[in-house]
């Protein structure tokens, strides 16, 4: 896996964090734009509700930037941000209780990169079905698969986020993948 802190061609996360500490609002904007999507996917994976996930992301970013002086830089900013988001999402669930589990046919709209030619309709439906099946997995399996597939995190990073060891994260991921394949058959 590669370090993608410079994937948008701008300053590194470390540089942006330093500028942010000095009150640079352009650096703040850049960090938010670079990492809000990952944070949203983590929040959505845990809360399973779009509106709640958006609130969670906002609160998580506010807390993260308030605590920016405590960010030591020994973890990637993205992982640190996603961990704060995951904690915020779990805290929200504890506070409000879990919402109704999404039914397989009642998931959020999916973004599909492909255009809409008829010959790709089957592939698109299969992709959406895979996403819907992913939502049915237990939280740690679901998060492990999502963080690995969508965000490209290492098992060590995933373990930090789900509160387990690197080995447990690996097991959760492979159990999740195995279970998804069974569900898709």
């Amino acid at each position, binding site marked *: 896996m590669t370090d993608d802190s410079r994937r948008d061609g701008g300053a590194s996360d470390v540089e942006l964090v330093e500028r942010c500490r000095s009150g640079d*609002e352009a650096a703040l904007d850049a960090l938010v734009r670079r990492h809000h999507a990952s944070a949203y996917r983590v929040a959505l994976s845990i809360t399973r509700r779009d509106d709640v996930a958006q609130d969670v992301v906002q609160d998580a970013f506010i807390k993260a930037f*308030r605590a920016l002086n405590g960010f030591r830089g020994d973890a990637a900013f993205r992982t640190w941000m996603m961990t704060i988001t995951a904690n915020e999402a779990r805290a929200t669930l504890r506070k409000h209780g879990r919402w109704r589990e999404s039914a397989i046919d009642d998931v*959020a709209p999916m973004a599909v990169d492909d255009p809409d030619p008829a010959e790709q309709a089957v592939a*698109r439906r299969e992709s959406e079905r895979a996403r819907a099946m*992913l939502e049915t997995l237990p939280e740690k399996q679901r998060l492990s698969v999502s963080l690995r597939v969508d965000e490209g995190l290492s098992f060590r990073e995933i373990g930090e986020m789900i509160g387990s060891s690197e080995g447990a994260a690996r097991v959760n991921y492979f159990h999740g993948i195995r279970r998804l394949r069974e569900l898709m058959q």
Partner: protein
Amino acid sequence: MSHTDCGMIREYLPGAATDRLSSGELDAVQGHLLSCEDCAAELELIQMLRAAPPAVPTELADHVATAVRTSRRPARRPWWGISAAAVAALALGINVSTEPREQIDAAIPGFVSETAEGELWLSDDGLLAGEPSLEGLSDEALMELLEELEAEGAA
């Protein structure tokens, strides 16, 4: 193909789906997939998942950035919040200025003069809008005032 190979290759599959592998790693994966249907099916599943990521709300970044910027700014106190202390200080006659004493003295207008007791009082120039109050002035001060008036009258 051994399970050991499958175990190693499966670690690489998410990276293979996202072009995050080195050329050597990618060659190893592609070579393995030619003869392993199980790993090929797993890569297909990963590609399916990546083809339909959850849609991120388009306005989310703007909302979050605005919320964070707002939260980092110091809260502005309403004017009446500040004035409560200021009014109290003025009522008690407390000098709330942070200016050095010399600067304050320099800023006192010319029509204000100082009595022998160190109290400030207004000369007639400063009392044009009203009746001068002579109550409490010492005899010496009254005499000075009379002399000033006579001098101005003579001029």
